[in-house]
């Protein structure tokens, strides 16, 4: 009986060992989870950024070469003043007088991302942003008080018009709601029209 007791561990030894093991396990697990979440966060941010950069560069070129501005409208445009501030639509006409417009359509429900669309003279719509609710981007309408299309003051009357585009891009609407699957990136461009008519 005595011999058996000497060969085994005492209760206090087992408890201490278990305690140490538990502490190390919890710390290790926490570190592992943090690492996985950081990786997820970087991946989501990169995806939103790449999608956003692609969309903004196309929008940049389209607006810069757009001819002239016909009107600003939509959203909280001009409310409160100044005029043509934080709008969701700009109508242009090119050098042949053909109309086209850029539209920010806000998200609807959990399955439809907010998106940026180009509408041509036949009212045909081309979507610039990735609309996939899982892997795409949501041109978000919440948490941004001064987003949209804004006409900026020019240096003189003969100078071309200037448009500020400010959008907040987030992960697709159907992405997991966990914090590490969420991105919130502000894209802002100040674009001057090159061909003033």
């Amino acid at each position, binding site marked *: 009986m005595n011999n058996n007791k000497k060969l085994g561990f005492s209760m206090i030894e087992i408890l201490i060992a278990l305690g140490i093991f538990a502490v*190390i396990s919890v710390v290790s697990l926490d*570190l592992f989870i943090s690492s996985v979440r950081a990786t997820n966060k970087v991946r989501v941010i990169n995806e939103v950024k790449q999608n956003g950069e692609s969309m903004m560069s196309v929008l940049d070129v389209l607006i810069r070469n757009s001819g002239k501005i016909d009107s600003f409208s939509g959203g909280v445009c001009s409310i409160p003043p100044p005029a043509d501030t934080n709008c969701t639509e700009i109508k242009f006409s090119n050098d042949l007088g053909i109309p086209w417009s850029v539209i920010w359509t806000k998200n609807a429900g959990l399955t439809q991302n907010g998106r940026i669309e180009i509408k041509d003279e036949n009212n045909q719509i081309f979507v610039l942003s990735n609309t996939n609710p899982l892997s795409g981007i949501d041109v978000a309408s919440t948490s941004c008080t001064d987003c949209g299309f804004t006409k900026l003051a020019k240096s003189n009357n003969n100078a071309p018009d200037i448009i500020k585009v400010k959008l907040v891009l987030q992960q697709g609407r159907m992405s997991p709601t966990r914090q590490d699957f969420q991105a919130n990136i502000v894209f802002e461009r100040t674009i001057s029209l090159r061909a003033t008519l």
Partner: protein
Amino acid sequence: MEGMTITGMRLGLTSRLFKTVMKIFGLIHKKEGQTLIEAVIALAVAMLVISALAVLTANSVNNAKYAENKSLANNLLNKTLNEVRVVRDQQTWDTGSTPFANYPLDQCYKINLTTWQLITPGHTCSSPFSDSSCGTGATRTTNCVSSNYDCVDSPSSITSTDHDYFFCRRLELKLGPETDSRTVDVSIAWTDGSGDHVVNAVTDLTKHAL
């Protein structure tokens, strides 16, 4: 009977072998307890494992932050290049009262977003450029105002009142490669847990239609 004896002998051999293996791997407690060298080795191994985990986690967090900051800095680079392009478009190239081509070359500039002009402090850009060029702490904003650099907001700020002046920007104007062109050299610097970083972009602006 004979078979049972043989089985018993086999069991006895297996049991002794098992105990030997367990002793070799230290899984059976010895009467005299652990020696000092065993305890020291065990502690060293534990410390190594914990240190490795801590370093891995710190690196992971730093890399995540670096990637996020670099993304924001690249955003600012693009934003700045666009703003300079607007300045070019808002002015005549080489005629009138404020022609773009008349800005002195090899100078550091700031952008006045209200009048759409470059502000020239009349100072050559110093090199090398880093985040410390903008100063640190409470003096950072003051340093930027009095120097040739801009403290610029992180574009992640959602509201216009959220000023953190997280990045330092340098904008230099140089002679372009062709007639009637200017080279714009923009750098954005910042400091984070993994050190000082700079991203840079260069573009050429040509004479516009006006």
